[in-house]
């Protein structure tokens, strides 16, 4: 088996990429995609630990299932908000929603 660290490094790289996407993208859809990327990275992390550390304990695998489910629900909700934003501002760029400022 390849060492565990490989999976963790992969997961870290994916998470960092996703984080960069969330912070630096203007389009709401792209932000959501980045969030999905972060969730995937976290899932990899959980599954890696579940496989490598204790063969009997598969709670990590269960957790990954949960993450997939929650991600799906959350994206549904989020896309609804993006649609609303688009209808108001005629643009999906998140920096158009800046009226609640000082």
């Amino acid at each position, binding site marked *: 088996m390849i060492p565990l660290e490989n999976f963790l490094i992969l997961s870290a790289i994916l998470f960092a990429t996703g*984080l960069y996407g969330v912070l*630096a993208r203007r389009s709401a859809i792209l932000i959501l995609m980045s969030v999905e990327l972060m969730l995937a990275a976290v899932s990899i992390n959980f599954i890696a630990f579940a496989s490598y550390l204790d063969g009997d304990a598969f709670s990590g695998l269960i957790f990954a299932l949960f993450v997939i489910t929650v991600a799906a629900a959350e994206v549904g909700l989020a896309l609804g908000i993006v649609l609303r934003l688009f209808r108001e501002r005629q643009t999906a760029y*998140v920096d158009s*929603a*800046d009226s609640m*400022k*000082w």
Partner: protein
Amino acid sequence: MEQVWILPAIPFATFLVLGLFNRFIPRRGDGLAVLGMAAVVVLVGVVLADFQNFFVDGIFTPGGEHAYAEEWVDIGQGFFLIEFSTYVDSVTMVMLPVVSFVALMVLVYSIGYMKGEQRYGWYFAALSLFVSAMLLLVISGNLLQLYLAWEGVGLASYLLIGFYWERQAAAEAAKKAFITTRIGDVGLLIGIILLWRVTGSFDIQEIIHAAQEGVFDQTYLTVAMIFLFAGAAGKSAQFPFHVWLPDAMEGPTPVSALIHAATMVVAGVYLVARMLPVYDEVLIARDVVLYTGLLTALMAATMGLVATDIKRVLAFSTVSQLGFMFVALGVGALTAAMFHLFTHAFFKSLLFLGSGSVIHATDEQEVQELGGLRKKMPVTTITFTIGSLALAGLPFLAGFWSKDEILHDLQKHGPMWAYVVLAATAALTAIYTTRVVLLTFFGKPKNQQAYDRAHESPPIMTVPLMILAALAIVAGFVTYTGVGEALGFVGGIGEVVYLPAEGAHRFELDWAFAAGASATAVAGVVIGVAYWWGDAKRAAAARNWAPELHQLFARRYYIDELYQAVINNVVMGASRVVAWFDKKVVNETGVDGATQFIGFLGYRLKFLQTGRIPNYALGMALGVAALAVVAIGTT
């Protein structure tokens, strides 16, 4: 005897009912107040019989002390114990009849005097409150309860002096009375706390026993008892706290009769009398009592000599007579002091009510506007004269016996010069009281309109006068063993009311001494007559002979001006400093400063709220990173 708390409870209930509902009761509740008071008088009789163990075996036997205590608040398992306790002994048995009976006379009299006044119902309510507090004071078994009742009588006095509060002078006088006695009360509280610190108790009997067993350090106890005396001096208008009593005459005259002659002002005498066994342990403090009383007696007598308002003369006279009582206490003569308290209550309230009768009829208080009233107001004249002669100490009237006893005890136990001073004061008393009688009732009327208005008062006012006059004549005879036994006591007053250190003493008349005292009194009356009979030419000549002396007395030794100067400079100066501190430091720096600082922070930090989502996302990311660092760092 455990139910002796009912005595103050009845007038207090009257106060509540009248205070709240007097508008809805017929006649504004004056009948209710009188009825309550009469009930109290009857109950005092019951207490007296119980005290003499009448209910035990149907005969009167020597009374002892009855103590009763009930816990209220206990903090720290007896460290700080507040209890409701009563203590009834022979001293209480002197105070209870005096307070209740004089109060009854005053209440009945007030129905006539205060007729037609607005706030009539409130007058009776406030008087009932006063009587309630005073009764609570005399039955109190512990100092904290006594202090509570002490403040209660002070409050009632404030309310009643300021009864005509629409008049500026009355409002000022009420404030002055309350503030002056308050200063004394601080001393009293300090004394109480000092005593508690060592004994751990507020109970009076416990403190007395502790003092007698030598638990206290001498200096400490002396200081504590002097502080206690400060409170007594405040309430009883002794020097330097005497300034409030002459001004307190702004209140209605029956109020002056009850509060400022017979009852409240003797609260100080009562306190010192109660604590006298402790004063006997610290003779320096007892001497303070003696000399304060002596000084006050003389000063007040001189001020009464030149006063022109009939009530002011009586006020100064009260201050002076209270000085006499403190002199007696100062030599350890409890019997003499309580006896004088007893007789003085009757003839002084008689004098005040008599003056009220004059004021009610003529609408005048200045003796310079009065004169020759004896033809138009015979009953008032006769009763007032009887009271005056009792005050002067004419032989066989009440005042003679008690004043004689004080002078006798002073001569035996005190310094000779003090005795001479007090005897001179007694002569002065006779002089100024004769002056008032002559100027008011004899001679030619000086103000014709006042004279025309004069008429004898209605029976509801004259009957109390007559009853009090009868008492002013006979009350002194309780000093005799036979009289005492006839009343059911073990003997005369000397055998019932005494300090253990004095011992019970039978009264024997020292003829030589009595003759001397009578001579002084009679001499005083003769001098008074000589100077003020007719058109008082001699008195006018005397006034011109020493005008500065006359001014000194008339302006009350300029003490009021002195106090005002102290207040203006010291008190106001200190308050200016405090006010500056409050404005600059507390308000501007503290309160305003804090607000402005927060506002400034907000002004700078608001730019964080850009409203742009990516900024907030960055904030969240940074926060999580920081938490992770902290979490990993601390593991």
